[in-house]
């Protein structure tokens, strides 16, 4: 056991945890004031639900030794055999428990990301059932495939901190759930105006801060790769935030604070799979691409008519896909000998592998999410009724209101 690595990963775990309340603020500011608590709750309660599921079964399904090649095994159910020592730890220098809790925080935020797509209209019970099943049947297999020794890892797909596992998977699920729930009441004639943008900008800042734990922590050791991932994360995010406001400015609008915050999150998403595999200047290019592609990504919803309330598809889906492909362009074994070279370092095959991982991730998450929602909708209604939606979910679902007049 290495004390520095252990301390680093434990602190990184706490940083990643902090991203979820950051996301709650980011999303909460974007909805109307009658739905802010419901939206905050969608993120916050995932800390409760997913953490317990992770200890009971999720960790085992993601990082156990293999069950038919699709899931991890069952040997770590109820965390049996996950101890204070390094025995069995996928990161050899830290306690198995430290690795487990670091991964737990990733599992927590991923279903919370999806919640932006169904904000302002989903029933709470349906949301809890969907999130629990989605974690076990989409997230855990994805984590196993990419990090636990499954087929994507064996194929050589690079995903440093969860571009596929976290962002593309949640982005695809978001598209399904936005389509299946239907548009919010008043779509097209009622303005859905964010009720508190300072809250959203603060949330984006907390995400940026916590993301250092997410990406640098994914080195799983206090080493050179962690330092590289920390810097690439910062530079890509800065570049994306900056380019987003210039794009909207040039596109006939004005530079907006929401644009600066959205661009930052797009940059964070895009650098996630690449952070520990690419150099600093490539990370700036990845950030620039993220700002441009995601700006146009959020306009897809009005073109196709689905109501992805808070742009999970446009930011996490599009940003995740760009990040995965960009990893195939810019990855370098000079940065991380445990990775592979990308197209610009003489290995065009890597781009193809990344492309396959994009298609497989999106298709898998899309299909399983669709089937899950179909089955759940037979048992519990997914959507609140018109009266509840009109009153706002805060009062209708939680018997609370955020602001007293």
């Amino acid at each position: 056991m290495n004390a520095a690595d252990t301390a680093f990963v434990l602190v990184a775990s706490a940083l990643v945890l902090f991203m979820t309340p950051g996301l709650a603020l980011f999303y909460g500011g974007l909805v109307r004031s009658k739905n802010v608590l419901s939206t905050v709750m969608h993120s916050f309660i995932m800390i409760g639900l997913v953490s317990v599921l992770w200890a009971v079964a999720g960790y085992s399904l993601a990082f156990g030794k293999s069950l038919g090649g699709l899931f991890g095994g069952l040997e770590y159910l109820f965390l049996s055999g996950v101890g204070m020592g390094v025995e069995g730890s996928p990161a050899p220098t830290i306690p198995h428990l430290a690795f487990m809790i670091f991964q737990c925080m990733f599992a927590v935020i991923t279903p919370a990301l999806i919640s932006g797509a169904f904000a302002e209209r989903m029933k709470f019970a349906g949301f809890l059932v969907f999130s629990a099943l989605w974690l076990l049947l989409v997230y855990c297999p994805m984590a196993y495939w990419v990090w636990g020794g499954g087929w994507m890892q064996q194929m050589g797909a690079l995903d440093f901190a969860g571009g596929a596992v976290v962002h593309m998977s949640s982005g695809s699920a978001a598209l399904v759930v936005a389509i299946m729930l239907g548009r919010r009441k008043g779509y097209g004639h009622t303005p859905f105006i964010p009720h508190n943008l300072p809250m959203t900008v603060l949330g984006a800042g907390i995400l940026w801060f916590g993301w250092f734990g997410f990406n640098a922590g994914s080195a799983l050791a206090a080493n050179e790769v962690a330092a590289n991932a920390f810097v690439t994360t910062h530079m890509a995010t800065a570049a994306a935030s900056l380019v987003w406001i210039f794009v909207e400015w040039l596109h006939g609008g004005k530079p907006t604070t929401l644009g600066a915050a959205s661009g930052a999150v797009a940059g964070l998403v895009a650098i996630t799979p690449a952070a520990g595999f690419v150099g600093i200047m490539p990370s700036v290019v990845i950030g620039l691409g993220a700002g441009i592609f995601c700006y146009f990504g959020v306009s897809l919803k009005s073109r196709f008519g689905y109501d992805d309330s808070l742009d999970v598809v446009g930011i996490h889906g599009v940003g995740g896909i760009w990040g995965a492909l960009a990893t195939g362009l810019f990855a370098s074994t000079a940065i991380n000998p445990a990775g592979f070279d990308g197209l610009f370092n003489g290995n065009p095959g890597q781009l193809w592998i990344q492309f396959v991982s994009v298609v497989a991730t999106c298709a898998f998450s899309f299909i399983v999410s669709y089937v899950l929602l179909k089955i759940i909708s037979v048992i519990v209604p997914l959507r609140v009724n018109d009266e509840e939606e009109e009153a706002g979910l805060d009062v209708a679902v939680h018997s609370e209101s955020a602001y007293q007049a």
Partner: protein
Amino acid sequence: MKRVEIITRPYKLDEIKEALTGIGIQGMTVTEVKGFGRQRGHKEVYRGAEYQVDFVSKVKIEIVIDEDLLDQALDAIQQAAKTGKIGDGKIFISTIDNAIRIRTGESGASAL
């Protein structure tokens, strides 16, 4: 007694207040309101999506004054609130039957 209700630009509140207290008016009630007239609303843009916001923030000032002060007050209000551009607002004048000061029980003009 007359009630004067002024709906105008929020940033003009202080000037109107100064003008009214300057001619000896001793009280007023102020409310933040939203509405539209010929100015209509304005456009807001969030992540590239444009929304027309119909209701514009305005301030509503209500005063109740003796009839003798009315013309002087209306002049003072218009001088303070006028910019000459669409959106300056409106003044509504109505007659008040009576007024009572709760503390003393006085009524009529001496209660103002």
